[in-house]
């Protein structure tokens, strides 16, 4: 088991009033290696919160979370950062490529924390391979402002994969793309899931994208309900 969420609950408390809003309630989920999981649900249902807890960006109010057997709730912020760097790749609805860097530099950005110098050559080679794989070779020295949104989002996917993560988390990755680009990116994620042996968890409103995943869940009232694929 790559990742395990066990009886996870998450609520937000309004300061002063003490009123709690339950977002996730006693939720459990297991992600196996090479899995491709889609989570769908209405806006505000807690999909992103679930992804953030899975990606260690947020802490649950109660429950347990394990990644590669490690209890992530007990880890400090530095250990969590290391874990994110080594095991998790993120793709957000917006690409968040840094405008001051070229596409290649953006892709190499996750290699900066805690890397030995001699390893950087391998990183560069992998980055170039991945860029070529997603068809962005011609764009590698361009800045994000010189690229289309689709190109940027593909670049963001490559950045997420540069450290060979075990788990790729995508939060509405096609949300800002037109239909053509969204379809293309969906296919790319699935292909990379297979090629890179990276488990993929996608939170999306897109039925088309969800259908491409191996498993599909619906998040309703803070709980995950498995859904049959059409």
């Amino acid at each position, binding site marked *: 088991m790559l990742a395990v969420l066990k009886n996870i609950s998450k609520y937000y408390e309004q*300061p*002063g009033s003490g009123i709690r809003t339950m977002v996730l309630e006693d939720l459990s989920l297991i992600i196996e290696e090479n899995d491709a999981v889609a989570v769908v649900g209405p806006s505000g249902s807690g999909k*992103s919160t679930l992804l*953030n807890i899975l*990606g260690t*960006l*947020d802490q649950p109010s109660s429950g347990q979370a394990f990644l590669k057997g490690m209890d992530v709730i007990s880890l400090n*912020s*530095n250990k969590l*950062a*290391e*874990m*994110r*760097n*080594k095991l*998790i*790749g*993120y793709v*957000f609805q917006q690409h*968040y490529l*840094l*405008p*001051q*860097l070229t596409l290649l*530099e953006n892709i*190499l*950005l*996750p290699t*900066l*924390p805690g890397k030995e110098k001699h390893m950087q050559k391998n990183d560069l080679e992998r980055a170039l391979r991945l860029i070529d794989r997603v068809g962005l070779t011609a764009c590698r020295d361009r800045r994000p402002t010189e690229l289309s949104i689709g190109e940027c989002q593909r670049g963001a996917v490559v*950045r*997420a994969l540069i*450290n060979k993560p075990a788990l790729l988390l995508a939060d509405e990755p096609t949300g800002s793309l037109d239909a053509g680009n969204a379809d293309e990116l969906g296919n790319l994620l699935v292909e990379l899931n297979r090629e890179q042996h990276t488990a993929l968890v996608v939170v999306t409103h897109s039925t088309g994208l969800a259908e491409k995943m191996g498993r599909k869940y619906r998040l309703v009232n803070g709980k995950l309900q498995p859904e049959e694929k059409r």
Partner: protein
Amino acid sequence: MNNTQLIFRNLWFFRKSYLAVFTGAVISVAVLTGALIIGDSVRYSLQKLAVTRLGKIRFSMETGDRYFRDSLAYDLASKINGPVVPVLQTEGIPVNPDNDLSINRVQVYGIDQRFRVLWNNSPAAPGEDEALINQNVAEKLGLGTGDEFLLKLPRQGMAPSDAPFVSEKSNSVSIRLKARVLDKKEWVGRFSLKSNQVSPYNIYVSLPQMAAVLSLKGRSNLLLVGSPQGNSFTAGKLDTLLQQVWKPADAGLVISRIANKNIFEITSQRIFLDDRLIRGVATALHGGSFLLTYLANSLSVKNKTTPYSFITAADSIYLKQNLKDNEIIINSWLAEDLDTRPGDSLTMKYFLMGPMRRLKEDSTSFVIRSVISLSDPVSDPSLMPAFPGMSDAGSCRDWETGTVVDLKRIRDKDERYWNDHRGTPKAFISLEKGRKLWANPFGASTALRFPAEGNDIHGIESAFRQQVRPEENGLKFQSVYDEGMSAAAHSTDFGSLFLSLSFFIIISGFLLMAMLFTLHLSSRMKEAALMSAIGFHKRHIISILLAEAGIISMMAGIIGAILGIFYNQFLLFGLTTIWKNAVGTPFLEWHVEITTLIMGGLSGIVLTLAILLLMISRSLKRPLSVILRGSRMADREKKPGKKSVLLVLWLFSIATFLLLVYSLFGRNDPDPTLFLVSGALMMAAGIGWVSYFFLHSGSWAGFSFHGFRALLVKNVGYNLTRMLGVVTLVSLGTFTLVITGANRRTFYGSENDRRSGTGGFLFWAETTIPVEYDLNSQIGKEHFSIQDEEALKRVHFFQMLRFEGNDASCLNLNQITRPALLGVDTRYLDSAAAFTFVTLESRQYKGLC
């Protein structure tokens, strides 16, 4: 790519934002450094001025109205192998007869060629009827080289002008001199022993001419010592050498052998023998007798009176008999004049002189013990002291006594006695009684006599040197050069002063920088959140941002420090032009110590970095997931409790109110510190209330904002930190202007207040020629011919005696150690409740005369 490349990429990409941050930091660092350099410049300029005004002079000995021999300079020079120059100094009033312009209290120096060795570029000493005048005097009087002017000097003489029986008539003397204007480059024109940056008014006159005019031939009252050979010379060592070479004459003592008598006599050119000087000598010379000769207004027995007679008080050794306190010996001339005999009662009347020549006639009765002949050995015309204006008078009617002498009372037989026997005392009383009656601050005897056997002049001088220290006579060296340097080094700290004045500008600069940097950071928060999401430690993200801030801080520190030099020059320009009165000299020069520059730059770097680090830490406190979501809810979630904020705000406001009430009504005089504190509290409370208003504007009960106003309030309060930054910036600027204006101290409106710095006095004047009478008394008014001035009928004069020293007011930038002393009538100050004193000491100062 590595971290360094990333940092420089960031710096270049966000160059516009960073330029704005850099500008705020540079302003603060430049103002901070510039203010510190002002301290360097003022200290350097004052030290340079000290060198300028002292030339090669290292030590000085000022003795005021105690005059020593000119030749003391030669005697001392032989001991120290360096230049020692005697000078006669006094104050004077130069008058240009062509335009009637005059200057009060100008320093007048009697010098000769020896004075030149103390200066690098000195003109020839003034000749007879010639005067060197400095630029200040020339400009103020409108004099040029070759022009003639009058110089009015206080008539001095060896005797103190306020001692009993010293004539005060015509207490000034004028001489006509031809001016030679000193060039600005001739530093001798700036000569001054006072630690003060203000350029003096100096006139140099020929030493022999000045000494002759002031009846002080061969005398000086200022000894200047140039750099002695060897570095170990101190004022103390010079005092020791002075002890070895000084003579009784340097203390105004005259040793003489009485003609036809085997007796030595020590008298003083100051009339009265100073007890501190003579007591030790008397102990060393065995068999000495003190004598005190005084002028009685009248001696009466029954209805007969003899006017103006000298009486000598002497001990039993001199009189060869013991006199009781109430006994008197008279000579045969007096016995005959009063038709009296032993056993009769004799009444003696005499004047006692108080401050400002207030004369009080007192009387004492004696019993006549015996009558001696005029040929008796104790009867001696030389017993009369050398009272100026009396001892050299041809007749009694020519007496100038300094007291009221009724010439009508002088009979022909009195004139004959004067012609035949001069001031031979007509009566003798016991020394104890005489001292009880006539001892005064100048001394308790007029002569010391002792047998010539076993003594000679050299022995007496030797006893004098062994028993009396020069400093007891006011002969003491001062390390004027070291004092000048120290006074300049510890001068008013203009660095701190300008730092305080610039404080709010510095704060504003940093606040502006912090605001702009926060703005910049807010645009990069998603970048930070992304970096955190992809595995950067928070520490790593902070270090990248801090490195960028560090480079900006360093650049701001270096460039700000350099710009600080220009800011300093701008301040110096102000201080030497529009603010000239604040420093009293246009001779401020730019000077910077490299340590100050480094300190300014480093302080700027550290402060900038600390502020930017604080901003970075604050910005990165928000949860990353929230930042990535783009929500501002986290900010709102952390807003402080309404009640605790309200409590703090009310406490601030009440404290402000109480402080203001106390400072306005609880004290007699306003305290600037209290005003500053209450003002700062008011500003903090005001900013707090603004913050509170916008923070809670959405939930304020009783306030209803709709439409445009509601939108306005919401918009302004949306980014509270930024809005408060702007409010604080404008508040600080306004506060600076208001507090500076409110604390500007003037006399306007309080000039008549007796507790103010004016003491409630309307006019104030300083004189060069001493006013020796009480101007409120009839005799004083008559003396100055103001008795008929209608306008002065209701005017009260409050007179003070000034003992010269350094200017201790805030106008003198130097740190002074010897301030001027003012002798005042404390009873009048008490009764008039004039001035406000910080502390009052009730100690009695004795021996100041």
